[in-house]
């Protein structure tokens, strides 16, 4: 994954960590970033395609050199099965966001309906006082929608961590099977 000359240039990397689902591991992993003063831009933890195996998806904006060192340190942790890092071209990724907006705006501001249509977002719920929009997409798409809605007033906004799958294989099952065979 070494792109040669780009090692020292800051860019976006998505780190995928496959790990045993244990209490305390998040603390151990976040400490690795903390120690090096590298900010976690986004973090998502969920189950993975393998039973009892969690997947951490961590987004950082730093150099490839640092990213590689961090991934080595993460992988060193006893409960981490394997860690990978990818740049944006090597993954398929999405983020989700929810916007809570006052209901009257839906009727008072024509433009809101256009934003909903153009942004390809969904209305999750509508009540007397507010309605909730859900948007899934790339970060800049969510940012654009946020900017468009902001002048009208957003009651609450929240965005998820990045979700990503790699284009190439991440052979975790093979690794786990090999462990069983080794035994």
């Amino acid at each position, binding site marked *: 994954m070494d792109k040669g000359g780009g090692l020292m240039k800051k860019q976006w990397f998505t780190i995928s960590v496959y790990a*045993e689902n244990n209490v*305390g591991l998040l*603390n151990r992993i976040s*400490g690795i970033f903390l*120690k090096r003063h590298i900010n976690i831009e986004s973090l998502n933890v969920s189950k993975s395609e393998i039973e009892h195996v969690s997947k951490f998806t961590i987004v950082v904006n730093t150099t490839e050199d640092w990213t590689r060192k961090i991934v080595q340190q993460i992988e*060193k942790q*006893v409960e981490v099965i394997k860690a990978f890092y990818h740049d944006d071209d090597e993954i398929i990724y999405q983020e989700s966001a929810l916007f809570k907006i006052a209901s009257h705006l839906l009727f008072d501001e024509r433009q809101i309906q256009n934003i909903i249509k153009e942004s390809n977002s969904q209305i999750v719920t509508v009540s007397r006082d507010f309605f909730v929009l859900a948007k899934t997409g790339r970060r800049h798409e969510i940012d654009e929608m946020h900017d468009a809605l902001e002048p009208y007033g957003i009651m609450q906004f929240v965005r998820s961590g990045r979700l990503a799958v790699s284009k190439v294989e991440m052979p975790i099952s093979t690794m*786990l099977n090999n462990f*069983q065979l080794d035994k």
Partner: protein
Amino acid sequence: MQTVKEKKKEANSSTKIKISGAEAIIHCLLAEGVEILYGYPGGAIMPVYDELYKFQDKLTHILTRHEQGATHAAQGYARVTGRVGVAIATSGPGATNLITGLADAQIDSTPMVCITGQVARHLLGSDAFQETDIIGISTPVTKWNYQVTRAEEIPEIMAKAFYIAKSGRPGPVLIDITKNAQFDELEFSYEHCTGIRSYKPVPTPDESAIDAAAKLINSAKKPFIVFGQGVILGHAEEELKKLVEKAGIPAAWTILGLSAMDSDHPLNVGMVGMHGNYGPNILTNECDVLIAIGMRFDDRVTGNLETYAKQAKVIHFEIDPAEVNKNVKADVAVLGNSKDTLNMLLPKIKENNHEAWHNEFKEKYKIEFEAVIKEELHPTKEGLTMAEVINEINNVSQHKAVIVSDVGQHQMIACRYSKFKQSKSNITSGGLGTMGFALPAAIGAKMGAMDREVIAIIGDGGYQMTIQELGTIFQNKTPVKIVVLNNDHLGMVRQWQELFFESRYASTVMSNPNFVKIAEGYEIKAKKVTERKDLKSAVAEMLASKDAYFLEVKVEKEDNVFPMIPSGASVSDIRLK
């Protein structure tokens, strides 16, 4: 007390034996071959201490005078024996007092298992008396940690703890056990841990990397080996010697690599690093192939990375993949246990002899000898030097002693001038630089090697950081030899103040108590030497003593340790004065 096996034998063989979690902990320790552990009791660990009382004929518990002392004693024991050191403490302050020892063991790759008591499960998170989040606190300084809240978890977790502590690159593990888990009963059975699916302790060596390394070594004109503790931890001392001799390569040790090779081996060219020898430092920047074995390119070894061995091809033999390319880019990385990889390498190495290159080290040694060593070992001035004390110890101990040093000037002098014949004989706090390490570590080292002479070399500053462990020596009649090289200063900091802060001695002058009286208060034979003429007989008397012995030597107050690579400078800019 009976072991579980014996109990089972007596009971009907089909009935399962139920025991308390606390007793299970003892059986786990016994199953792991633990004979001795260091600790300090308190509320949340009392059930375990109650079992330790019952099992005192099978398992020796050494009461230290502070939990930090327990960790360093466990480290000293681990470093001298190669086995896992064990320390135990209560919750809250007992647990937090372990942190320095854990951090030290983590950075120096020492296998250690620490057990802490914790408040009962139902009290967790309630700010109960002596509750502290020791898992959170210890996470950055442990290889692994785990909080046990149910008795039935104990056997599996303890087995994992020992396996993780000693496998691969060793390190400290902390197991926090709530009080209810100590009281509750479980059906006990024990199985050693042989693998964890997410954890690969030893990478499989890559044959092509071995080939590439052999090719570089065979074609090198000025090869240079720098080896570290990985040789000792990997039991690769013989393989290293074979490589050095077969290929005729000068070899230098890092501070933690000391004693992995005979000090007097003709190809041993001394120590690299900030206060290492002149030749190996300066010639790092003249070799054509740098062969790093079981070392991690610490900043105290490399100085400025921008000017470190840039001319050389670097081969890195390393067990921990995270160390590869961390500080110094390796042209060839050979992952694996050093014993295995060196054994794979050896048949591929051509016999060679780099005499002219080796002579460059000898020339550099002559320069260092004239500029530094001669005056250190055979001073013409009145005041005693630290090095002449070490030299006298070498003479009497015949290079057979275990040297446990603390941190500071005396440590650098001890590491520069001590002579070794046997591996695992140099115990010092290398990575963390923990003042106060040596006295308790020497206790553990002595208990791990009762047949060997164990000599602690300590400064007047560090000595007073863990001086309370004299009580442990007193209670256990541990025959360690304690040498305090007293310059009435925090010498290393004072040296830096002199060199880099225009001699403003901020808080580095020490008014010291009567150390001899203090030792005598603990009924330890004690002597103070202030003049050269008394040194020889005092060292002889100390080493002839069958009991513990305290020797204070008043040394020159403002001596500096040289050579020295100033912080951030290049290894080429090593100063002789």
